[in-house]
């Protein structure tokens, strides 16, 4: 499960994108590519200081301007299911490099993730 395949799995889900300049974008991921370029819908943009907000119906983000992405906790489970489905489809075993090892470590506070994501500007600098 590579970082970019996790991003692929997150399509259609809410996420938070922070750019290198500190601006954040909250929205639903519509599409992404191998360069981490993204398109989002129903976006709330926040200024680096966290004091100004804009609503955008959709936006495009060039991958190389991104600092990090935050995705809902559930996505990790979904990517595991995707992997199982793919293995069944190809009928082969084996793991890819960097693949996730068996589960481990229970998740805490799942279900609050959407609140956290949409209230993030409260905590941000």
């Amino acid at each position, binding site marked *: 499960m590579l*970082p970019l395949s996790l991003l692929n799995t997150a399509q259609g889900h809410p996420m938070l994108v922070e750019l290198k300049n500190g601006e954040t974008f909250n929205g639903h991921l519509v599409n992404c590519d191998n360069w981490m370029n993204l398109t989002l819908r129903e976006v709330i943009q926040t200024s680096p200081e966290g004091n100004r907000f804009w609503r955008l119906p959709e936006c495009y983000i060039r991958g190389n301007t991104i*600092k990090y992405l*935050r*995705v809902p906790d559930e996505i990790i489970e979904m990517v595991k299911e995707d992997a199982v489905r793919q293995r069944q489809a190809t009928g082969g075993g084996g793991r890819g490099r960097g693949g996730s090892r068996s589960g481990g*470590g229970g998740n805490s506070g799942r279900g609050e993730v959407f609140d956290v994501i949409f209230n993030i500007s409260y905590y941000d600098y």
Partner: protein
Amino acid sequence: MDNFVPGAFFTTSASLVDSVDRKLLVVLRDGRKLIGVLRSFDQFANLVLQDTIERIYVGDAYGDIPRGIFIIRGENVVLLGEIDLDKEDEVPLRQVPVEEILIAQREEMEARQRREKLKNKLLHDQGFSVDFTETDLY
């Protein structure tokens, strides 16, 4: 991180593979410290951290903010290191509530800006050029 083979090139992938499923501290270029479990990485050292908290340090105090899953673009990482689970509770720091640490952080930032302003003014009065503005220095 002890899979260094003499004669082999140092690569991020070779050194990170042992850290998968371990608890890591990641420092970003903007000074943020994230603590989470490394689940995945790629050839650019893009990282996936699970059950992440953001830890803010001010003096001998720190505060934790739960953040969840991060996909960090590798180029923003300054350093990362495994956390020794046996020793992590022995640090001589005190944990304070989030609200408290955020206030302390803002005060620290404002104090630094005041110092910087004063310093620039003094330098300017002495005839020095003060058009240098501090960036992240990386």
